[in-house]
């Protein structure tokens, strides 16, 4: 499956991944991040049931230092 994650192409991802599956694939802890799928925020409660489609655009963010 092909996804665009944080502006970068990822061509080699397993088919039928959920958001939870994608985070597990990369090793990112769910509680420290937030996910946007095709410009809509995905609620944490929906990570497991949100199945990603080919060519979805995802943003995965966290908090860093800022003023």
């Amino acid at each position, binding site marked *: 499956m092909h996804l665009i994650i944080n502006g970068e192409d990822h061509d080699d991802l397993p088919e039928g991944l959920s958001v939870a599956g994608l985070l597990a694939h990369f090793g990112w802890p769910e509680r420290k991040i937030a996910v946007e799928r095709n410009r809509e925020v995905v609620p944490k409660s929906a990570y497991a049931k949100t199945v990603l489609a080919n060519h979805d655009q995802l943003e995965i963010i966290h*908090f860093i*230092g800022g003023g």
Partner: protein
Amino acid sequence: MSADPLVIAGRRFNSRLIIGTGKFADYQQNADALDASGAEIVTVAVRRVNLSNPDEPMLVDYLKPDQVTYLPNTAGCYTGQDAVRTLRLAREAGGWNLVKLEVLSDVHLYPDMAETLSSLKLLVADGFDVMVYCTDDPVYCQKLQDAGAAAIMPLAAPIGSGLGLLNPTNIQLVRQAVNVPVLVDAGLGTASEAAAAMELGCDGIIANTAIAGAKDPIRMARAFRHAVIAGREAFLAGRIERKAYAVASSPMTGLID
């Protein structure tokens, strides 16, 4: 709880100092500075994760969101749509809806007030409590209040400049023009300037570079803590009138011969 809390959008805080989390040597130094500052709110930025490095140090591991209030900012956003999008993600990441709106221009990072006002309206409509970084124009600050700002945060001087309180008259005019809390945000260089802003009647201070960029950030954090308390106390106590003549402090009677 303090007898003189800072109340923003119904939330009560003992400390009137907010510190940033940018520019520290590392997150541990940031956490130590937070401890020394006594602050209960930190500003934070929202950025993409580095997908390939899930084990990198993370802010939330050092400054615990259950122990300090995160105030997500919109640094890097140039339009209202960008700001709303960024803060919706921040809200999902942490569950907070108290946020700092900053829509900057490319003119010395000065706030773009027209874009700030339109962004504020979008965020308020989306249910956010918005603390707004802005210029020290009292008329525009009133417009921000009318649009639902939870706090007005005029700059003391350009971001990161350390020039201090360049226009105390305008800061005072802003304080008089609005009813919501006024916090001086950006441009302070040292503790006495924070005290001076508080003596004008400001409700709080945000400091980042002044603390993080000091030779000893922990000590400067402590200095700001004391300065904000001192300035607030002095404001509440009420300063004496300025006189153009001397008035003796010691009685002139009962002198020895």
